[in-house]
């Protein structure tokens, strides 16, 4: 999977490395700001009130 992505990145080595870093940053940002905040309320350690 990662090998496939690497092979399909355009440009010389340095450009590919930078693109790869940007891709990783984009995925981390997506997780941190979209996926995790969405999934968090569904997890069990945030219920602190009694009903």
């Amino acid at each position: 999977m990662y090998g496939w992505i690497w092979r399909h990145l355009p440009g010389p080595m340095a450009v590919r490395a930078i693109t790869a870093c940007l891709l990783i940053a984009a995925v981390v940002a997506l997780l941190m700001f979209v996926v995790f905040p969405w999934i968090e309320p569904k997890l069990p350690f945030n219920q602190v009130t009694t009903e």
Partner: protein
Amino acid sequence: MSTLDSGDSPAESPVGPGQGPDSGDSERVRSVVRGLGELLITAGLVVLLFVVYEVYVTDLVSAGKQREATSALEDTWKAGPPEEERVDHFEGLGEGAGFAKMFVPALGSDYAFTILEGTTEKTLEVGPGHYPGTAYPGQPGNFAVAGHRVGKGAPFNDIDLLNSCDAIVVETRFSWFVYRVMPKKDEVGRWAEKAADPRCKGVAPLGAPYDEVVGQEIVSPRDSSVIAPVPHRPGAEGSVGEQVTLMTLTTCHPRFSDRERLIVHAVFVQHWAKDPAHPEFRPPELKETS
């Protein structure tokens, strides 16, 4: 990630020893296994990242929101209309509105949080939230507050470490209210030993109907009676004049789980009115940091 060394194209992949001319099949198996491995490693990294998010990133976000809530509260205290009687009014607080600050010197001299009205998820992200319908600071009844234990600033992370007689100081616009943690269950029988401590002045096991109220307990999430005016005896409150002035903290238990709730009960022992001539006054209880 792990395959940066796997060559630029499948045609250039090194052919290992022992592989015949029809190595296409084993090549395919190898790439499937490799893909699976990469997927599992990725999943592990995502879970790790989630832990970082939950424990650190939500703390940062909540710290910012808590700061905003605190400065908003200080502004309303400063800008509010001058009141001759200097009595706090809490009517008409909207969800998420800050109305008091709490200090727990036993958890550190910098332990301070602005308490907000309501216990919705959004409110608790900002700070400890007051259960609507329960008493307000200093009022007879049960001033009940919920707070997070993991992430989100985790205001109630360490309330399991509170000992009996530890002070919980609540500041409102015109007053300081000092509550102290009630005797714990195993101390009730031999309270005389501890009662000699000057900090325990005003703290003692309460008689009926408060005989089940102890400093710390662990209850089921469905046990709403812990925030009743008379904890564990909903409906036994009688008239407001007969009620003891209590404070109750609730959080999840055990840490990282919501199986149970950790409850801390405290009793009101001391009131300090703020004097406009001495705005720098701080109650001596705030110095009880050990």
